[in-house]
């Protein structure tokens, strides 16, 4: 038993960088997972992915101008992703093209531009770092940024909760009563990008979206309401973060992919055994129903 305890707690007790990484992933879960839930329920799951790619050229521009500076890369990433989101919204409104197609087109342009910018000055290591981050190298500034963004996210979601929900399932009604539907949508996009940017140093642009979407998609198989989903997804994200860090430590594997893969494991278990529409659960219920 003490062996188990020492392998579970030991790394966090012994190494400050592990404690820091743990706090970072817990705080990231608190901000990212609820955003992921809203995206899942609004059928915008792939928008998170598109935005994660769209962060890259801005972060790369920040890197070109200021080197490995967190504020410069964060600001650049935020501006670039918001520009892609606004441009996609504009193309959707101004042309008959659907939003998913505009998002796909623009994020691919952004991704190529980002890779090009990194290659101008950076090395392959820099590119890998941007795409996949390094949770074990999170410094005080990054930790503070993560904490601030997570706090703002929870407050903003609480303040926008009613219009955001209404805008999600009945946007026409919200418009007809003059509700702030467009503002709710914009706040959601800003929060999405802010969370991806804040996760940037710890997990990189591409892994960050895993911590956002996988716990949310998994939670959908266990609970129904949005508040319950948000709470459960935070728990899944936090637990996966801790487990992923331990896996990374003991197996000497990169931390970002470990965390996201543990989230993925939670998702697969939920798809199979979730109490709401889990594949195996449904089979079991169907059988008992027939033989009753």
């Amino acid at each position, binding site marked *: 038993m003490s062996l188990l305890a020492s392998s579970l707690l030991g790394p966090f007790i012994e190494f400050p960088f592990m404690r820091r990484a743990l706090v970072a992933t817990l705080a990231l879960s608190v901000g990212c997972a609820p955003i992921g839930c809203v995206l899942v329920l609004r*059928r915008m799951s792939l928008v998170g992915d598109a935005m994660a790619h769209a962060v890259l050229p801005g972060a790369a521009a920040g890197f070109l101008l200021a080197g490995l500076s967190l504020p410069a890369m964060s600001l650049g990433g935020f501006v670039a992703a918001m520009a892609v989101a606004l441009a996609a919204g504009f193309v959707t409104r101004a042309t*008959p093209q659907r939003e998913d197609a505009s998002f796909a087109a623009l994020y691919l342009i952004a991704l190529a531009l980002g890779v090009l910018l990194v290659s101008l000055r950076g090395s392959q290591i820099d590119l890998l770092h941007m795409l996949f981050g390094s949770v074990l190298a999170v410094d005080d500034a990054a930790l503070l940024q993560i904490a601030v963004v997570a706090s703002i996210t929870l407050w903003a979601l609480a303040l926008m909760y*009613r219009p955001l929900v*209404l805008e999600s*399932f009945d946007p*026409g009604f*919200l418009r007809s*009563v003059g*509700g702030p539907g467009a503002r709710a949508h914009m706040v959601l996009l800003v929060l999405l990008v802010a969370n991806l940017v804040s996760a940037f140093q710890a997990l990189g642009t591409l892994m960050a979206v895993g911590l956002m979407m996988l716990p949310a998609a998994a939670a959908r198989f266990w609970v129904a309401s949005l508040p319950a989903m948000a709470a459960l997804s935070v728990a899944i994200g936090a637990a996966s973060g801790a487990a992923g860090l331990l896996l990374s430590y003991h197996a000497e594997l990169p931390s970002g992919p470990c965390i996201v893969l543990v989230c993925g494991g939670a998702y697969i278990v939920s798809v199979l055994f979730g109490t709401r529409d889990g594949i195996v659960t449904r089979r079991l219920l169907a059988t008992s129903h027939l033989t009753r």
Partner: protein
Amino acid sequence: MTSGVAVADIAPAISLRDLTVSYRGHPAVHHLSGAFGAGTLTAVVGPNGAGKSSLLGALGGTIRDFEGRIERDPALRVAYLPQASALDRSFPVRVHEVVAMGLWPRIGSFGALTAADHAAVIDALAAVGLRGFDQRWLGELSAGQAQRVLFARVLMQDAGVILLDEPFNAIDARTTADLLALLQRWKREARTVIAVLHDLVQVREHFEQVLLLARERVAWGPTAEVLKAEHLFKARQMAEAWDETAPACKVSA
């Protein structure tokens, strides 16, 4: 004016002056003038693509791309029920939450519901035949039950003008009959109801006024006068003869 049928001599709830409504950049309703009488039931009928939904969207405030004028008493509240397809029923919300949102003008983003509000939600659900459904998920309901929920929300909106876009599409006969009875109740309460409908039998039976639309006004007035074979034939011809590629007409007059 393309028809000689006079609009009934009733005080108007909403007057339209040379209204041209665009949908996705294309004009969908052209140069419409006339009035919806206060406290009347008006059916808006016409072929597919006639601009009925665009007109309702403009009246309901969700389509702002129009020229001409829509005049109504600013104090008059408008409740607008779009087509059912606009609703995402898979989103996890409970029936009472949906109905309570009819109070949006008063409670907005942050206002709390009072005990009286909760009671009003229960009453509104009872009025549409859904007593005891308040804690159910919207996604568990049939299409007909979901439409009843939306009618309960309209009840909560307590509006002087009620706009319904194809409210009985894919709804069974029993539900349709119940909801039509609700329309009669609204008329007795002196509310103005404007509904887009396709079933002319239903229109003849339950609506006193009809606006026959085929991108422009074909006829507008008492039901029996508007729904004549010649008008219906003309509406069909106008819809078929419409040139999609014609340049947009100049509206500013």
